[in-house]
């Protein structure tokens, strides 16, 4: 199912993208967005707000570092990014636009089973 969502997402992206970018390229773009807009809260090291909170929530049952997760679903990520959640205010379209968010989601779900 997840694979299917991923594939559907990819085909939407691919169709909408002028150059028909390869999936790896889009994932790489997503990684760049992640590094610029998410990593300082979610990256490695217990001094980052997101990592601290997710570590508290999950203990050792899931990785506290967001980009090491393999269980995040695309719609879940989209929803968290665009709405207010405790500790994380909405990330507006002017910060991460819709295309960048699609790429970001592809990056964060790249290792999903």
């Amino acid at each position: 199912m997840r694979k299917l969502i991923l594939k559907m997402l990819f085909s939407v992206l691919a169709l909408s993208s002028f150059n028909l970018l390869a999936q790896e390229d889009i994932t790489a773009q997503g990684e760049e967005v992640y590094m610029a807009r998410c990593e300082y809260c979610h990256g490695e090291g217990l001094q980052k707000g997101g990592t601290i909170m997710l570590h508290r929530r999950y203990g050792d049952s899931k990785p506290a570092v967001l980009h090491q997760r393999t269980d995040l679903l695309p719609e879940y990520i989209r929803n968290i990014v665009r709405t207010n959640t405790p500790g994380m205010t909405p990330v507006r379209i002017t910060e991460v636009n819709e295309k960048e968010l699609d790429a970001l989601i592809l990056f964060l779900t790249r290792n999903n089973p």
Partner: protein
Amino acid sequence: MSLPPGLSQGQFDNALSEFRTAVGNDWVFTIDEHIAMYKDYFSPLQNTEAQPIPSAAVAPDSVEELKVVLRVANDYQIPLWTISTGKNYGYGGPDSRVNGSVIVDLKRMNRILELNEEHAYALVEPGVSTYDLWREIRRRGYRLWTDGPSPAYASIIGNTLERGAGYGLLGERAAAQCGMEVVLANGDVMRTGMGANSNAETWQQYKYGLGPYVDGMFSQSNLGIVTKMGIWLIPEPPAFRSAEVYVSGHEDIIPMIDTLRPLRLSNVIANSATASTNQGGHIEGAQGPGGGAGGGPNVDGGHAPGLPGWRARLGFYGYDRVVEANWEQVQDEFASAIPSATFHSSRFAAPYNPDEMLTESKLAAGIPSFQEAPIWNHGGTFVSMVMPFTGADYWDFLQTYDGLYQEYGMRYMGGPLHFHAPRSLMTLAGVPLSSTDNAVNERAMALCENLIRVSGEKGWSEYRTPLVFMDNAMESFDFNDHALRRFHETLKDTLDPNGILSPGKNGVWPQRLREERA
């Protein structure tokens, strides 16, 4: 959906289509789901009818597009509210003061126009965050340091215009600003300082130009929209020592402040040092917004075993021998004033590796971080007073505030103190809010209003204030029947006769909306 005051749906639809022509369909936001992203989730008014809701948000990508937005707003008399990155949480976030305002979101204007290593400055647009600039410096391998607030995503322009506080050698952010480009309400584009010479070679090296120095008129202001700003950077020091002084008694804050003052005044402590209670100093111990860890406020719900001691955080920068001599001298001064004081410090040297530093060292080295995010689970609101740099004054402040907090069933043990403006103290009192219980927020509002009023009587006023308290805070600047506010209003009515720019910002209302003042 809300409408700008006095506009019919039909008129507003016409205005929206003109905005769309100006900036493109994708960059005018009107549906609820999008408007919700421009809400202040830290507002004491959240979940009440009183919280202003924007009618739309418009995101121009250039000065030319912005000029058209201003023209349309003038034509329809639509109140705008400008944000750069809109992360002013604790002080109002991206929100406005008038229901139905159109948010002008400048995040798309995010170009670093110049980065100069030789003269240590940058020229940036509003959407550039401290973190964006820090990354670009590293990408280019320049030997420069930034400075700024702890929230990494904050706009350099937004934070500097708010006269925010950093932690390093240029922590007094307003003082690090050099030259700006401003679009006035009538669409006229002006450059200040040396930038007024169209061939300027020193726009970012000399602040004042010739004649009246006007940059300050655009900070914490509603007289113009700043579209470019020069910001000074710090040449990377060869050595850096990040240091902490601990005192265990609650009353030890008095000699601690009196020991810090001469050291700060004489620039032996050259950075924007801070002090806070040592309780909950580690993030793991933080308890909601009251935990007092990191830079968060220290409001204690009564779970504290006894009154906390204090910790001052200092930074020493420059040639190795100077750094070491200054730190030794500072330890001697503290040891003789407070024999029980203890010290901790870490030394770093170029080339620096941010991964080796803890948050406190990173902040003093201008490395953006945002450790505090989780403390603010349910948001909080700030009261930030400027007061004399003496232990006795601060002790008076602590007793006064703790007394007022207790009237509302809370305790105040002392929030972070900032020494960024080297000749005064800036104190931070945080009041926790609730995202579900309006009674908590009403109580918080009442407490804040009281804190502001009582402080005013004592001669303390705020350096910056949340949207909801702007009228209260400006009220304390009352000399000669508010001569200063009358001056602000004269400028406002002259430069912005339709009152379109951020009405009510810091208690300054345009003629047309002056009855809105609380």
